[in-house]
């Protein structure tokens, strides 16, 4: 029931690695880390959700907020490596239509 957020700044983009569970309790931690990045003009932010095995509507809401911010600041937000469960919630809510999402490719034979 913890969340771990690490950021890596490259020359042209920022990568954020998130692991743990994103819920009402941990969402503020994600928000505090993510918002300053997406509020910068023309930022390019990639959030790697490989280590996230649970997300709820609070977490989904934070990504909506982040998307709005990049949209306003001519930036770019991309989510990568979502596991199936997490991807499913983005699909059910229709968020996968508005946010740039690249899901994890499950290895063959799994």
């Amino acid at each position, binding site marked *: *029931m913890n969340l771990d957020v690490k950021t890596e700044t490259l020359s042209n983009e920022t990568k954020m690695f998130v692991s743990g*569970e994103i*819920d*009402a*309790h941990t969402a503020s931690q994600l928000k505090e880390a993510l918002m300053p990045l997406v509020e910068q003009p023309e930022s390019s932010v990639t959030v790697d959700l490989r280590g996230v095995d*649970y997300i*709820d*509507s*609070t977490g*989904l*809401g*934070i990504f*909506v*907020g982040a*998307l*709005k911010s990049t*949209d*306003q600041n001519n930036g770019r937000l991309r989510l990568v490596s979502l596991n199936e*469960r997490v991807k499913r*919630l983005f699909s*059910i*809510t*229709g*968020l996968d*239509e*508005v946010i740039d999402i690249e899901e994890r490719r499950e290895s063959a034979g799994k």
Partner: protein
Amino acid sequence: MTDYEECIEMKVPARPEYVGVVRLTVSGVANRVGYTYDEIEDIKVAIAEACTNVVDHAYNDEGLISLQFLVHDQFVEFKIADDGKNVDVEELKKYRGPIKPGEPIQQLSEGGLGLFLIETLMDDVEIKKDKGVAIVMKKYFQKDGVAHGANGIEAETINKHQ
């Protein structure tokens, strides 16, 4: 409606740090009564969303979330209740739904997804205003890969004929 077979009850403080505790407990109970992996994951999300609603809206100060899981033959009834007095149920019902494709990004709502998720992931959802608010959700067992009462009607009928 036939009587339930088992009842699991708990009360936790209406604070965000307990939503995860509820999730773990629900996962254990759902596993015990025989739901599939995917059903358990759906139930976890739905129950957690209901708890988060209580945490965010029900109380000005301290309060409790009351949980009751009634295990029936073909479904479990999950009841999440509070005794706060601050929620306008009609307002809650009005403000929900998925993101519609083509909606301008700046107009997207950051909230309102919780109730929508609950209604999508569970088979039958009722919101009752009593002392506080109670959300009662049913999830049917999909034994043998057959979705008994996935529409909430079929299994109801089966029950009555037993």
